[in-house]
């Protein structure tokens, strides 16, 4: 056997050695480390590169970037805006999105979803999340039936109790509907950091699949108790108000703040949307985030944030310090 290296083999070996020595500083390496630090057990990546997380106690996964419809999808019967929103939904699915969240409190948003799904067909990746809300009128079952006909879907994947309104009555009914196979999962929602103690009690009882709450880089109250409890109980968490109602990202842009270099180099952030959303979805307790938008450009920005690399635990702390320093 000839053990001598040919010139080609020598060059390959040299190249591999150089690559190996550079590896820790490459974003790709940071990405795999970040993935581990962000809760490897419940994550993977879909064919379109969008980061996925397992939800609840199942093996099913959801893309980490979902879409909210509060304010943005309440367009009434305006044909121009109905078609514009349909294009947003189309792009959302084309870019790998799954979960869309709405509520009877959001005006015509459920009807607008129905219009979009009627035009586009119901994609297999749709994970429809709705809510029941006492002021909307009717019993839990009547509301779910009505909302399904407005969305034009045969069945919702998830029905949540909006802002804990009459949650005991609604949850009891939703549990029965889930047992009957009429809905996939059940959950509760809150926002603005309200009623966390009550949320905690419901989560501790362990018979809900999802909880939706406000979590973003400036509102991190859920980190102390609710997110660890969700991990412990196997409850999926949907983060709402990722941009604090838009004010967070608007303020950053208005002030002309530029992204720190390390955020780009180590976390792959190219926009503030990347920075703010990656911070949220890299928390191991968060399943997905639901930014709302009317513009395709912003949607694309949001969806890009669901791609690797994700910030490591230390980078997440650095992100918080950076925002707090502004």
């Amino acid at each position, binding site marked *: 056997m000839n053990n001598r290296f040919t010139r080609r083999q020598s060059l390959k070996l040299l190249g591999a050695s150089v690559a190996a020595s550079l590896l820790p500083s490459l974003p790709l390496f940071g990405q795999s480390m970040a993935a581990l630090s962000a809760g490897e057990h419940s994550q993977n990546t879909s064919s379109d590169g969008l980061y996925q997380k397992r939800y609840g106690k199942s093996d099913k996964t959801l893309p980490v970037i979902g879409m909210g419809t509060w304010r*943005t999808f309440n*367009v009434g019967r*305006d044909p121009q805006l109905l078609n514009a929103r349909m294009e947003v939904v189309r792009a959302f699915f084309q870019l790998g999105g799954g979960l869309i969240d709405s509520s009877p409190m959001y*005006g015509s948003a459920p009807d607008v979803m129905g219009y979009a799904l009627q035009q586009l067909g119901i994609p297999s990746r749709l994970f429809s999340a709705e809510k029941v809300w006492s002021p909307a009128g009717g019993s839990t079952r009547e509301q779910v039936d009505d909302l399904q006909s407005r969305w034009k879907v045969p069945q919702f994947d998830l029905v949540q109790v909006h802002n804990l309104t009459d949650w005991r009555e609604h949850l009891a009914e939703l549990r029965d509907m889930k047992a009957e196979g009429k809905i996939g999962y059940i959950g509760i929602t809150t926002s603005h950091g309200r009623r966390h103690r009550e949320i905690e009690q419901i989560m501790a009882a362990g018979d809900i699949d999802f909880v939706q709450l406000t979590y*973003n880089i*400036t*509102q991190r109250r859920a980190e102390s108790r609710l997110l660890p409890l969700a991990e412990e109980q196997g409850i999926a968490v949907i983060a709402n108000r990722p941009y604090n109602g838009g004010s967070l990202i608007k303020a950053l842009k208005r002030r002309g703040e530029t992204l720190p270099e390390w955020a780009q180099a180590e976390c792959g952030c190219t926009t503030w949307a990347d920075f703010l959303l990656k911070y949220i979805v890299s928390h191991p307790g968060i399943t997905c985030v639901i930014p709302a938008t*009317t513009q395709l450009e912003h949607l694309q920005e949001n969806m890009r944030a669901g791609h690797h690399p994700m910030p490591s635990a230390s980078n997440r702390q650095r992100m918080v310090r950076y925002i707090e320093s502004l």
Partner: protein
Amino acid sequence: MNGGASYQLQDFIPFTIEIYVRLLERLNETLWPLHLITLTLGMAVVWLALTNRTRLACLFIAPIWTFVAVAFFMQHYAELNWAGGYIGYVFFAQAMLLLVISLSGKGIHTMPQQKPAVFLGGVDKVAVLIGIAIALAGLIALPLLAPLTTGASWQQAEVFGIHADPTAITTLGLLLIMLRGWVLWLSMIIPACWLLISALTLWALDASGAIALIAIQATGLIGLMAASAPKRKYFIKS
């Protein structure tokens, strides 16, 4: 940088500025050329008010308020905001109030046989002049505001008798010209409340029109104070 967790004004507005502007546009698309009639009617009502034909003026504005209640609030605004239908009923109540004033003659400032309101003296003249300015702002300035100041399309122009804001503004001015006493205060409540709601909505949506509405409200308040100041007795039937 601190996000704060409390509710903000915008958390209570269930639509974006883009959606609200499209609502204004859609009304224009649907109702054109009715605008020509409502604007002509508005100018005629100002002339009636200035020539002391107050009962006739109130009679003409009442159906305008009913039309805005139905076309603006119940048929369009209610699609975006569940409260829209209720606000429509409130606008209808204002129409009824104007009708009652027209039929009963209560609170009417001057009578046709007197000299026109604009020639009155003292603080009354201040109230009347402010009323004229506000009425003309609603009829002429507001439709021009968005197209001329922000470069918005003419299709986004808000017009008296079609949209809520110019209808409320013009009426506010007319009331300052025509009415006095508790009837003036009573009849100003609904237009003033709507303008406050609208100003807060536009403020929350980062729209420039909010400042204009607040300025008009403040001017109207000065006019109301002037109209309510002690003065020599005019012919007030109450």
